[in-house]
């Protein structure tokens, strides 16, 4: 048992323990999340120093057996998941004890989160298409559970939509994997270049990418996401928006650099869908009247930007753009989780999340609003955040290739994101006549610390971008 297997087994076992023994759910969850973070960091350090690793389960090598592969990209995603998980766990574990009606929600969170964590870790480590499909199924079910966690009528409805969309995506994925197997006779990831070379193989890749597009909520298949992410509990929204969406995006990136980028049409469709999501999400975020809805639409837009970058990646050898995409995924995960947790705290203090009602005379801006502002800076892509370095690299790669229309689109997306996020941040700077002299400040809660920590991490990551970028050098190709 090394880190690779432990990263998959530990969260899944902990999920069973937490489900079977609700009274110990919190302590189990916290320990498992901490342990997972330690394992992820150890693995990342080892890969950063020693290069990528592959492991054949049971000693059966591909194409006969199934294998796990841990490389720089996978390690980066594992660390990303672990960090976001830590932040969200701090928020959940540190929240004041809920009233009787909400105890169930609290204990149900941990098994669902741990199952999500295990599924995501397995997904990042999978080295074959069928494994990817299986991990998607586990992930999808856990994510539906997270969506429904708050138990409100809208949440249940959103969870049902999520389930339907997820199943449709899985079906496309499964069809694609089956067709790939029929074409090539194997499903390990090394088969991707072969698939890209044949007609049936390209259809298989097309089906897989279509499935991923549904799961990543790319335009025009995004219909389910804003409702799901905005009606869930804050901690669930943070996980769904920061991490679960990334699973599909990660697989798209993985398939692209493994050779899927050779299919010109697929890349173009992905880039156009990404651009569509970026503009559609931004437009709706500009018009949203509720904070959570704004943040959820911003996820559509940001994921669109990342998909655009992946669509413009011509392969692993075209180093800049796919590295930019990976860095943007990381920075979006940290910033978006921070943002949803901050929104959770703001909503808790205000009792609502209407943007027009954010100005309250008797309430001063608190730590959560500060965290929101820092996360917004990262999402817009202003220095010194990781979002800035990611966008810089992306533009650098695009200009290098003379892809000026795409440069213009990325800049347009940046302007729009600044516009919709400024709607909120400007209200965080209220003062003077808008605040009564005796106005109170919101009390400190664990959620504030978690949001501030994640937002600061996104900020600091900009200065330490060399770390993830070096790690990415150790990626299997």
């Amino acid at each position, binding site marked *: 048992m090394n880190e690779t297997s432990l990263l998959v087994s530990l969260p899944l076992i902990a999920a069973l323990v937490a489900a079977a023994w609700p009274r110990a759910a919190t302590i189990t969850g916290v320990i498992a999340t901490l342990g997972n973070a330690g394992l992820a960091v150890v693995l990342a350090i080892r890969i950063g120093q020693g290069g990528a690793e592959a492991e054949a389960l049971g000693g059966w090598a591909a194409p006969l057996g199934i294998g796990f592969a841990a490389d720089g990209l996978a390690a980066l995603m594992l660390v990303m998941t672990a960090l976001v998980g830590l932040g969200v766990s701090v928020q959940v574990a540190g929240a004041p004890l809920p009233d009787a009606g909400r105890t169930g929600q609290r204990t149900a969170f941990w098994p669902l989160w741990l199952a999500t964590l295990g599924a995501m870790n397995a997904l990042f480590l999978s080295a074959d298409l069928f494994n990817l499909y299986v991990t998607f199924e586990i992930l999808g079910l856990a994510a539906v559970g997270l969506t429904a966690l708050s138990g409100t009528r809208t949440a249940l409805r959103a969870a049902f939509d999520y389930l339907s969309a997820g199943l449709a995506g899985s079906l496309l994925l499964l069809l694609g994997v089956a067709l790939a197997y029929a074409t090539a006779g194997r499903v390990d990831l090394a088969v991707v270049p072969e698939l890209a070379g044949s007609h049936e193989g390209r259809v298989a890749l097309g089906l897989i990418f279509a499935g991923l597009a549904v799961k990543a909520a790319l335009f025009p298949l995004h219909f389910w996401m804003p409702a799901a992410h905005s009606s869930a509990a804050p901690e669930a929204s943070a996980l769904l928006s920061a991490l679960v969406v990334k699973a599909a995006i990660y697989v798209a990136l993985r398939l692209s650099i493994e050779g899927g980028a050779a299919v010109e049409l697929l890349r173009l469709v992905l880039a156009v869908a990404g651009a569509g999501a970026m503009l559609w999400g931004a437009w709706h975020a500009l018009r949203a009247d509720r904070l959570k809805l704004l943040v959820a639409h911003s996820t559509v837009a940001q994921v669109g930007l990342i998909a655009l970058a992946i669509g413009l990646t011509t392969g692993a050898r075209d180093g800049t753009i796919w590295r930019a995409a990976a860095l943007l995924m990381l920075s979006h995960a940290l910033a978006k989780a921070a943002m949803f947790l901050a929104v959770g705290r703001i909503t808790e203090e205000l009792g609502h999340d209407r943007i027009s009602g954010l100005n309250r005379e008797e309430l001063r801006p608190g730590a959560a609003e500060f965290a929101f502002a820092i996360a917004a800076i990262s999402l817009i892509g202003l220095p010194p955040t990781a979002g800035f370095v990611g966008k810089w690299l992306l533009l*650098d790669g695009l200009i290098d290739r003379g892809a000026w229309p795409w440069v213009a689109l990325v800049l347009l997306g940046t302007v729009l994101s600044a516009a919709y996020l400024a709607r909120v941040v400007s209200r965080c700077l209220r003062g003077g006549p808008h605040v009564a002299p005796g106005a109170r400040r919101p009390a400190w809660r664990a959620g504030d610390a978690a949001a501030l920590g994640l937002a600061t991490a996104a900020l600091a990551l900009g200065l330490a971008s060399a770390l993830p970028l070096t790690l990415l050098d150790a990626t299997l190709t």
Partner: protein
Amino acid sequence: MTELLPLAILMTSLGIAPVILALPDGWSRLRTALNLTAAGMKLALVAWLSWAVAGGAEFGLSLEIAPGLALALKADALSVLFLALSSVLWLLTTIYAVGYLEGGTDRSRFFGFFSLCVASTVGIAMAANLFTFVVFFELLTLATWPLVVHRGSAEAHRAGRIYLVYTLGGGLALTLGAVWLYALAGEVPFLPRGVLGDLPQTDPLAVTAIFVLLIAGVGVKAALVPLHGWLPVSMVAPAPVSALLHAVAVVKSGAFGIMRIVYDVYGVETVEALGLALPLAALAGVTILYGSIRALRQDDLKTRLAYSTVSQVSYITLGVALVSPVAAVGGLAHLIHQGIMKITLFLAAGNFAEARGVKTVSAMDGMGRLMPGATLAFTVGAFGMIGVPPLAGFVSKWYLGAGGLDAGQPAVIALLAGSSLLNAAYFLPILHRAWFRDPPEGAVPKRRIGWMLALPPAVTAALVVAAGLLANAPFSPLGWTRFIVSLEYL
């Protein structure tokens, strides 16, 4: 140890900012103590650095954050020019702001972002490459926004929105230009006489487009017409913020950016060879006249001063664009001279508003009798702006005019004469009202002005006189700019 000096200077203001932001609002003594200690330390460190740089020492340190992208700081003669300005004025403005905002709300937020602003300025001054410059330039935008909207009124938020639209738009142009240049040239460090090599010959179109993007990007903060719209609107901010915007940080960073781009990225010869020097000089000339003409008709004192800034900052751009060492001396010296003159005017204007509620030119009657100290400081600043010898502004204008002749552009003399006449036309009526008219009956009763408000404009007014009288001393702004220019035009 000394190689860490640039970092230490940066950390005096960057390190203190989060501490101040986190302090409860009521802890004003601790906050003031921290603030003044940091400002004092910075001043001492910058003095040490200047001494070392004058002796030929070089400082540099860098942190690579992506392949080919490094956050790098260095201290050269040009950095020291800007650092000296920002550290002296930070100390004075902090003292003034503590007095000005006494008893106000959200002071921790104010002083935290104030420090962050100065930290960004320090980063801009010491940026060793274009990437680092862009990082701090954008940080400056973010740090000033909360200050512009500090009062929290609808008007302040409107000004903040306009400020953001202009500066983030400029930032976008700057970033695009910078990324493009990195894509073409690999790395873009700041070195005297430019770093582009033979790129201007092989790809003149792209290099020209990048120049336009970069200058437009920094031109927003330098308030070049037609990118100046944010500056007069931002006048709703409190007086110390106006001082910061106009004298210490924002417009100066824009002007400094133009210097770096022309001198240390392109090199003056390349800019001239590309045929970009004359258009830039012409744009500066238009801005100088336009700002002055608009200033004539403003009754609001701060708005009049704001248009005056639009005009005066472009003297710096003009000096850079005229491709003549003599003009360059005038332009660079004006970076300092305009700073100390304009801050004197704003601080004095802030005192008029604080003590007597006087905010318009038409209410200035008899102010010389009511507040002789502040009015005297204001007068020194105004005379300096007009260019009355032996004040600082005269020195700048003299060198700019001589540089115009040197560059074979005698039109510059006409421009300077016209601008000086206009300066006189919008400043002298204020002085006339203040000194020669009687105070109105039933003037607003006086509110006491503490030493924290009275001292800073007096000191800066003294500096205006000193910078002019002692212009030939080796450590005067003029002496230092001669040293810089000798490096660029060797």
